[in-house]
């Protein structure tokens, strides 16, 4: 791997609070690296360390140089909670930030890339939250950087805008831009990233491709049954060798492959158990996140059940690999 971002033993403390605790990391040329982790895990501090905007202990090299020594024309940064001057238009803002570099992309081209051509002459403060964030992404792209650092780039962007931005980032990655991004959207990180790192309490606790992480930490695929007869359903399924766990309105069956679904339906039918819905779910990056961070959702009855329920409620644009495969009304 032709490494363009290398961090070794990076440590940063604010007083007694350790933000980064010996982070080792390498990102290859043209790679999209997604960084996930709970709030306060150190993601923003790591971005600041890599871009040279905060001093840290340890060794960081960007294209073989210290971050502060790198040609800034090659770096693009979208800081977290960044807000440019509010009473400049989107076009003026791109002209302004583009004017700080020796060479910059055409403003109209950047506006088009971030889907703001029609809103180009509106003041930043009059744009919607999602449009504002797209202006900020445009500002990060205006110098056509080789390495792009994006700290939660799609926060506040509506689903359509988010997908448009994903397409833009994918096309940049296809063109050889190295992208380092943080996000709380697991679907976003899973879709965009070649590799993912999970940061917790300042330590990088897992790194790998999304599939590698899911295989290692995501658990098994599962079948979720919504029913008022959860105990009977679980008992019937367990008797036939399924690993079923009951909660008052739900049964979670772990380790169910697609070809096992028919057998499970037959078992329920034979036992005369009715159900409202049957959902088959593949493990996702969100399961990895929950497994490794030890976080659970409030009100969860079982870890498995909680994951599936919240995965569909957290974000309308999330795409858990789930499909409602049957409705049980006819099985009463």
């Amino acid at each position, binding site marked *: 791997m032709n490494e363009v971002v290398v961090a070794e033993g990076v440590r940063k403390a604010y007083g007694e609070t350790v933000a980064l605790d010996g982070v080792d990391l390498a990102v290859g040329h043209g790679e999209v690296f997604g960084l996930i982790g709970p709030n306060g895990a150190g993601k923003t501090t790591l971005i*600041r360390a890599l871009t040279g*905007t905060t001093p840290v202990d340890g060794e960081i090299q960007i294209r073989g140089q210290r971050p502060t020594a790198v040609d*800034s024309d090659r770096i693009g940064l979208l800081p977290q909670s960044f807000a440019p001057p509010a009473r400049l238009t989107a076009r003026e803002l791109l002209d302004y930030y583009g004017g700080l570099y020796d060479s910059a992309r055409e403003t109209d081209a950047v506006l088009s890339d971030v889907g703001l051509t029609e809103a180009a002459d509106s003041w930043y403060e009059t744009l919607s939250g999602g449009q504002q964030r797209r202006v900020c992404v445009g500002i990060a792209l205006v110098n056509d950087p080789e390495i792009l650092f994006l700290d939660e780039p799609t926060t506040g962007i509506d689903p359509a805008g988010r997908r448009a931005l994903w397409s833009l980032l994918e096309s940049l990655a296809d063109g050889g831009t190295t992208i380092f991004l943080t996000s709380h959207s697991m679907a976003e990180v899973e879709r965009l990233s070649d590799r993912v790192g999970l940061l917790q309490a300042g330590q990088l606790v897992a790194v790998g491709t999304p599939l590698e992480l899911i295989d290692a930490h995501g658990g098994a695929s599962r079948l979720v049954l919504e029913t008022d007869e959860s105990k009977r359903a679980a008992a019937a399924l367990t008797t036939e060798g399924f690993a079923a766990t009951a909660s008052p309105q739900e049964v979670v069956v772990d380790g169910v492959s697609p070809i096992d679904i028919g057998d499970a339906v037959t078992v329920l039918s034979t036992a005369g158990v009715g159900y409202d819905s049957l959902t088959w779910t593949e493990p996702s990056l969100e399961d990895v996140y929950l497994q490794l961070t030890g976080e659970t959702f409030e009100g969860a009855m079982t870890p498995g059940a909680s994951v599936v329920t919240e995965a569909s409620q957290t974000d309308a644009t999330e795409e858990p690999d789930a499909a409602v495969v049957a409705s049980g009304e006819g099985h009463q």
Partner: protein
Amino acid sequence: MSRAHRIRAEAVAAWHSFLRRRTAVFFTFFFPVILVVIFGALVRTQPTDGGLFAEPAAYYIPGYLATVVLFTPLSRVGSEIARHRDDNRFEKLATTPLSRAEWLFAHTVVNVLIIGVASLLILGLVLLLTDATVPLTGSLALLVPFIILAVILFCGFGALLGRLADSQDGVIAASNTIALPLLFLSDTFITLEQLPSWFGPLVELSPLTYFARGVRAVTYGPAAGDSYLVELGILTLLAVGFFVAGAYAIPRTD
């Protein structure tokens, strides 16, 4: 060329941002105007009565100019730094080629333009509303470098305040607390004779004193033969010092 390009980009953005904050524009010019109207036209100077405003009207031109030369850069640059910090703009700028000195220079240029216009307004009002006269001599041209140097000085001072204060409110409070005593105790509106003798050396410590004395020398003093070169030299040194300190103080990292 690229440095000039960067400074121009920053200055244009700052200029447009200022012009579009109508309240800020209004009060930037209204404050000195109201001061001239109150003290120059309503209170009026009374040369024979002693006390405040006992000197001829032209004596107070440096004081009127000082209101914009002092207050505007302190509050504008300080607030801009606090705003940039709150919005993580410095974190972004730290990854661009724009240096801290270039940022401060660009904002100083904008302040020079704003304060230049305000100074012309003040001079015009003083001449129009009071019986002040300004002798047209060659040295009057030195009013321009005096104003520019003072703006540079107080932009640097404002940058220091912006670094030290933790919010925009803090910057405003600090700049008012510092500027108000400086305005009145820098040989501007109150003569040295009206102050206790022990206070005299303290007046020498105020950077605004050298602006006031220099401006007075070129606007009011030619008749009295006042000198201005020492004041111009001291102001130049102070402007360079405060600019360097201010540029260094601008936060580019956390």
